């Protein structure tokens, strides 16, 4: 095993990957998600999102001038959009919903 500090185990995204993204100026969790692919695996960010938000807060605190140049990154920390399904669901079960009664 080569030495790695893993931020997102589902997608094998390392701390070095996240630091590279921050170094390139991505200071928003959604930007870092899109650049590195973290949070896009089977757990959908349950393990990596909060850790990454804390890394971003630290980076923003360390370089307030850069944050001022990027007003869109000044927003308060927010989670990336959690889309359904938030837990893995077999496709066969989802398929059962096809044509299901829409009335309650």
């Amino acid at each position, binding site marked *: 095993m080569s030495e790695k500090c*893993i931020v997102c*185990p589902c*997608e*094998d995204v390392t701390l070095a990957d996240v630091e590279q993204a921050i170094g390139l100026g991505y200071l928003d969790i959604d930007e870092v998600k899109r650049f590195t692919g973290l949070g896009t695996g089977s757990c959908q960010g349950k*393990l990596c999102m909060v850790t990454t938000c804390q890394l971003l807060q630290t980076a923003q605190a360390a370089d307030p001038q850069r944050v001022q140049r990027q007003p869109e990154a000044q927003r308060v920390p927010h989670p990336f959009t*959690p889309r*359904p399904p938030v837990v893995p669901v*077999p496709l*066969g079960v989802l398929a*059962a919903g096809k044509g299901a009664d829409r009335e309650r």
Partner: protein
Amino acid sequence: MPNPDHPPSSAERSGGSDFHIEFEGRAVRARHGDTVASALIAAGVQVLSRSLKFHRPRSVFCLSGSCGSCLMRIDGQPNTRSCQVKAEPGLRCERQNAWPSADYDLLSAADAMFPLGMDHHTMFTSPRPLNRLMQKVVHQLGGLGRLPEVDAELASAASVVCQHVAVLVIGGGPAGLAAATEAATALGQTGRVLLLESQHSVGGSYLCHPELGRDRAHAALQLAQEAGVEILTGTAAFGFYREERHAAQPGAELGFVAAASDQVLYKLSADRYVYATGGAAQNLLFIDNDRPGVMSGRAVGRLLACHGIRVGEMPLVVGCDPFADELVSALRRSGQTVIHIDGTREKLTRALGGSWVEGAEVCDERGVHRTVRCDLIVIATPPAAASELLVQHGVTVELRQPGGFVGVADAQGQTNVPTVFVCGEVSGAMTAQDAADHGARVGLSAAQDRISEQARDAAARNIGQDQE
């Protein structure tokens, strides 16, 4: 060279077995109440999966279905969380995503080839023929698992259930059980209370307490059943879907919670929603923090409490909250030699070992590093709120340390969405007992809110009739 058929035992469990499951062609002992993951850990299987890109060895981390470290091919279905599947006689499980085997995976060469990480933005992007070739190679090597053997039967066997209840409680841990009990007691015969639990048994974080957990979970379940709470276990809420238009109730807040068990798809709506979804175990950042043998405190507690499995002889526990202290005491009483660091003054910097943890590197506040011998690293830091469904439902969340993105609510647990209440860990880090107390308060106020709304509606109808 170690024999993969008889890996060195890293876990022990006293007593016999009830039946066998089939693991890559060999029989593995299991007991009633085991999941596939717990049976394999008890049998000393160290590597349960290989990671997506670097084929790094992985084993269980959270043991509660919220991480992706234990995905296996089970009875022909790929990418199944082995910690969420009950062990049954004759069940077949195998590891995936490795060649020739998960114990000796040659594809893990990728781990050494990319020491920092894979930057797919610049890798093999030119010249074009090389790029095409690399895409073919990546398609062959990457991905998770192979297609299932049978899927048509499953699809036709699944059914749909649509229901509307008075109070829907999502999550059957300390907070959810208490909330459902109080709500059902307050509502009596005037409304149904339905509780969803994704695991096969209710209890949530109660079940992570190595000594008292099972009794507390059982007592809370009994109270809920006596109060008339309807409980669906093995049924995970996976999304809130907003519905824009509804002719019957214009202006009302609309939508439904979708939930699924192995065989049933549920479309559920309610007058009041109580989210008690708890938290997801979090890892710390240190070198090789994904090595098998690095487990969450809740996983270690659950293995001991629910399965009688003691992993390792010399665990290193990181964490300083009440749960970490309780876990350390319980592990010591079980006979283990525990090293305990708080994670703030003394930090974990590296997990040492091969396909299982053999030691750790620790750094104190003066920056002095020391190496400790251990055969398990236990990350017993507070979990992060499982607030995905809350966000889908339109509830405001804020980042707290500890706690993660917690749902913001008033003292009664009511959120910015008036029909939505939150309680327990999803509203802030707290102990199991505090979560139960909080859940009881919030469950009662959700039920009272619904009762007073119905009284207002009834009064409004009476006034309307008088005027006619």
